[in-house]
């Protein structure tokens, strides 16, 4: 019986999706074409098509960005509790950053930072 909630949840989730689509179909005015077909590029005027081949170098930059992203994400909560974790916390963060720096050095030596 307690699993009835799960079933109700599934039904509710499905009706949320379907409901949104149906209401939009009924209410929204239908005017396709024009500026609506242009890809959104943060307000800039797009140049050319979106279906082009991106340089594979972007993918490596994405990975490198992730290194610093993870670092920053963990440093914020650490900074908040910095006073209570004290010296041990500082050493632990130093080890963590060291591991990430090894990742950066690795990428650097492999020539990832040079744009080909």
């Amino acid at each position, binding site marked *: 019986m307690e699993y009835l909630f799960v079933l109700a949840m599934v039904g509710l989730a499905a009706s949320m999706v379907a409901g949104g689509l149906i209401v939009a179909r009924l209410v929204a005015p239908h005017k396709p074409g024009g500026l609506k077909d242009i890809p959104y590029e943060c307000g800039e005027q797009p140049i050319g098509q979106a279906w082009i081949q991106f340089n594979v170098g972007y993918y490596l930059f994405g990975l490198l960005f992730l290194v610093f992203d993870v670092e920053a994400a963990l440093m914020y909560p650490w900074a908040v509790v910095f006073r209570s974790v004290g010296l041990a916390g500082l050493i632990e963060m130093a080890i963590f950053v060291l591991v990430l720096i*090894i990742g950066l050095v*690795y990428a650097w*030596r492999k020539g990832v930072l040079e744009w080909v």
Partner: protein
Amino acid sequence: MTTMNIAYPEIIVIATAFIVLVADLFMTERSRAALAPIAALGLLVGIAVTATLTPVTGELLGGRFAMDPVAWWFKIVFMLASLVAVIMSMDTLDGRARVRPRGMGFRGEYYWIMLSSVVGMMLLISARDLVTLFVSLEIATLPLMVLAAWRRDDAKSGEAGLKYVILGALASAFIVYGFSILYGLARSADLNEIARAVATEKSPAFLLAVALVLAGTGFKLTMVPFHMWAADVYQGAPTPVTAYLSVASKAAGLAFAFQILFRLFGDMLPQWGALIALFAAITMTLGNVVAIVQHNIKRFMAFSAISQAGYFLLGFLGDASEGVPAMIFYLLVYVVSNLAVFACIVWFANETGKEQIEDYRGLSLTNPLTALCMMIGLFSLAGIPPLSGFVGKFFLFSIASKAGCHWLVAVAAVNSTISLYYYLRVVRQMYIEPADKEAQPPSPSTSISITVAILTIVVSILGIVPTIYQHIHAATITWLASLQ
């Protein structure tokens, strides 16, 4: 802070992994041959530190990481297996092989990835909560997937990696879904607390969680019907990686099964005897029957490894105080025997580039000692007395017999006979078939010859010297007392 020393083995292996990776960046191509000895030295130090660890019990990080006597044995086996795998990989990666496989990539990365997976396995057996357990399982498995696909321009290697990734991800998804349900039922991520909370649980959600987690465990342990990935991955992976996969991933699978079946569902395990017996019977039968018709030696060893997983399962029947030491002892025997055989396969592939069973014909004439060592390894896997494989199987069979599964003992005995037939197929090629006159006889390699010799001696004496089994048995008693 006083118990920090129980984490030293892991810290040493992690540090070695990073040293190898960074050293690779600043070395010249010629001096990179020093990377394998560095990795091997790090593992040796790790083994030495683990061996001298006192006391072998303790916990860290609020009880999320714990060391116990059974974990101690597993860690020793993991490090030994990877040490041998590193030594085996040297010839292939340093270009000493006569037939050089192309696209073997950077050596530092290879050893780094291999050591990372060892760390994952070592954390796996020490994990005490669901998140640590799952993350360490992934740390152990993901590097194996990378290693399977190591040869960049080889289609088979790519296929092996892809199949491993897809099926491994599916298995991980099963496990993590099962874990999430368990967490919901027990409202705790601590393994011991979950075990207490679900001891009397009978709800359908719990049964679903058990089924999902057991399916994932079966995948890691290559239990039939979750074995499909093994043959293709073993065949496609570079030969030293296959050697590592066949022992390390099996040992990690057994470690995971220990965590699941003894720690998490320990109270229910006695009721699941019939299910485990059924799995054991079909796993060993299918593995053995399919191995008969194989021609590729790596694929052949894959099915042999699947059937060995069936023998391991016998240990989960009956009393844990006998089953656990029998399984750990057989794991040790299996790792040593399998590595002895694989060291010969790696060497033969390096020298001739061939991996069909028929290519081994006449090996006893050209390289009598290697052929003898390979035969001893194969006979140990088949369970011929007085080799250690016989002793290991004897313990496992007697457990099944004591648990009342006499039909299963009969199935296992018949399977041992079948396995002897197909292991003898290789021996027949080596000893009875005449050598290929035109082919250049393979020349011995120093590192692999020494490895094979040591492994063969260990295979021969492990079953005769009783101290090791006694130590494992004593370790188990302490461990079981801590489980209560």
